[in-house]
């Protein structure tokens, strides 16, 4: 799977991000190798989306360095990130509601800048959407008329358009149906098999363990451990919440405790 010999495609060292008084990210280290799926997990507000936005050129980092293919890079604008080959599916999708599906897919990368090639774009749009088993009735409807999951599929399809080196997916399956989720996981594996890197953010530990080669945990804006896909649920939960005695384990205990006394009564 992951190509251990070659250097990482993407390497972050000591990346921090300050929003006024809030330290959203503090000294984050992370790397992504060729053909590797890295899952980024953490509680709400842990800083996952902020990290993704820094790599996508949406936010500027406050300090730290980013190496892309062994060169130090400054990702100052979203255009720069796309140029480097870093594609992103944002948590808020970032689609233009007034434009149709085809226009959104090709936004900024239109075929035929001086004479748009609508036919070619439409055909490629259908091909991309088919790969994702998308259920979109018409690509000529404005995005505003699509369901949440359909929009998410469009956003994912868009990130694949340029055949990127690294693709970052910020909770890509949150709104997806069963079949579409499976397709997205398949797709992540296909992208990995092509030798590209994937950063996947998800709150669904099952999905994460199914595709991730490594699981990077963020907690309150800091690194809080790296796990293999064989990590147990408890290990991950305690790293995410920061304690072995946490609300998740208490719930689990309470449920097994509620189950046990019955047997006690019976005997």
């Amino acid at each position: 799977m992951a190509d251990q010999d070659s250097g990482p495609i993407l390497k972050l060292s000591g990346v921090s991000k300050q929003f006024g008084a809030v330290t959203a990210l503090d000294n984050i280290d992370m790397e992504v190798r060729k053909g590797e799926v890295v899952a980024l997990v953490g509680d709400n507000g842990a800083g996952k989306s902020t990290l993704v936005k820094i790599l996508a050129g949406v936010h500027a980092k406050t300090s730290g360095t980013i190496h892309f293919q062994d060169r130090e890079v400054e990702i100052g604008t979203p255009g720069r990130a796309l140029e480097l080959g870093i594609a992103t599916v944002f948590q808020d999708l970032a689609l233009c509601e007034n434009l149709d599906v085809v226009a959104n897919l090709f936004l900024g990368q239109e075929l035929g800048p001086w004479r748009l090639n609508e036919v070619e774009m439409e055909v490629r749009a259908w091909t991309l959407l088919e790969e994702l088993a998308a259920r979109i009735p018409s690509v000529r409807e404005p995005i505003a008329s699509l369901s949440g999951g359909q929009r998410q599929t469009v956003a994912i399809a868009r990130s694949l358009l340029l055949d990127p080196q690294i693709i970052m997916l910020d909770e890509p399956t949150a709104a997806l149906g069963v079949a579409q989720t499976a397709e997205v996981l398949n797709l992540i594996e296909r992208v990995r098999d092509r030798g590209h890197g994937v950063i996947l953010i998800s709150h669904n530990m099952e999905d994460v363990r199914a595709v991730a080669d490594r699981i990077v945990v963020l907690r309150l804006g800091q690194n809080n451990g790296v796990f293999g896909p064989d990590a147990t649920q408890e290990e991950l939960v305690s790293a995410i919440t920061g304690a072995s005695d946490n609300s998740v384990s208490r719930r689990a205990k309470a449920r097994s405790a509620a189950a046990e006394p019955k047997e006690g009564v019976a005997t």
Partner: protein
Amino acid sequence: MSDTRKIDRADSRVREDTGLAGAARGFLDQVKSGDLGILPVILGLVVIAVVFTWLNPIFMRPQNLTNLLFDAAAVGLISLGVVFTLMLGEIDLSIGSMSGVASAILGVLWVNAGVPWPLAILAAMLAGAVTGFVYASLLNKFGMPSFVSTLSGLLALLGLQLYLLGNSGSINLPYQSFLIRFGQTMVMPGWLSYLVALLPGIVIFALGLQTRQRRADANLSVPAWSVLIVKAAGLTAILLIAVWYLNLGRGVPWMFLFFAVLVAGMEYVLTRTKFGRSIFAVGGNREAARRAGIKVERIRIYCFMICSTLAAMGGVLAASRLASASRQAGTGDVNLNAIAAAVIGGTSLFGGRGSAWSALLGVIVIQAISNGLTLLNLSSSLRYMILGAVLALAVIVDSLARQSRASNGRA
């Protein structure tokens, strides 16, 4: 219909709107969901024509309609420009003053300084381009809302206009020059105007054929013949009748053709180029456009420059129409007429929706009202009040349509 499903008709939930009935049904659906298209314009024109002809039969005379088209071209150009700022969800309130400054520059350079008029026009357009660049930069660098920057620009430009014209207050332009004849008397020869009237229909038909062929080759669904034919033939019929009617009087002004050609060019830019697509994107969702790698600041600069430059050209046309550059040029209702025309034609004040055609259609409506009121010998006080009400009405329709689109999921 062939048996093999087309790529874009694979989903069984898509209704196959084939033929004319399908097109009509699609149009009705659109209107119901708040996508009014040119419906308000057509309704407006019918009401205006009926009411004003009833009040004063001169209104519908061919001579008067030719006059109307002469008047429409100048405001129309200004309106075409403001479409580009409205599309971004911005506004330029200084287009009237910009046109006034442009006419003053024309007068001062051409008449007072003896510069050839084409150069004087270029200078006026350059002034427009610089003004637009300043507005866009204020927005980009300081986040100054265009509403404020152009409002202060309005005053500054008005000052510049008064300064340029000096004590005399107005400069008469040479009557015998080409520019003034262009603005006052030049009409197309009858036969040529008929030929030109055929052109849009032919172009629509030819492009439609080409699109059909290419879609069929790509195994995409193909729009029905009947729709294409009705569209092209209908437009041709309307244009031929209009041209015939105008030719009963003085004919079709060259100046109006000039305006219409610019509109067609800008429509191409908005709908068929990457630049135009970016304008829609920035107007629809600025942050999404930025994340797609679109250089939002650059798009703003271009749009504001196009807006002010076209306003300057409109000012030149207005000056040639009046054969003078005066202190009054570009003041009064010019600003609001131009903005109202764009909105009436279907360009949204909220950004992300609009077309170049909206300027052409809207300006005809506005000029018709203005012309009709003038024929009734109404004082400008009443005219201003009525036009103000029309603008308010147009904006109300725009807002309601927007709400309806939102609740019908059409952005």
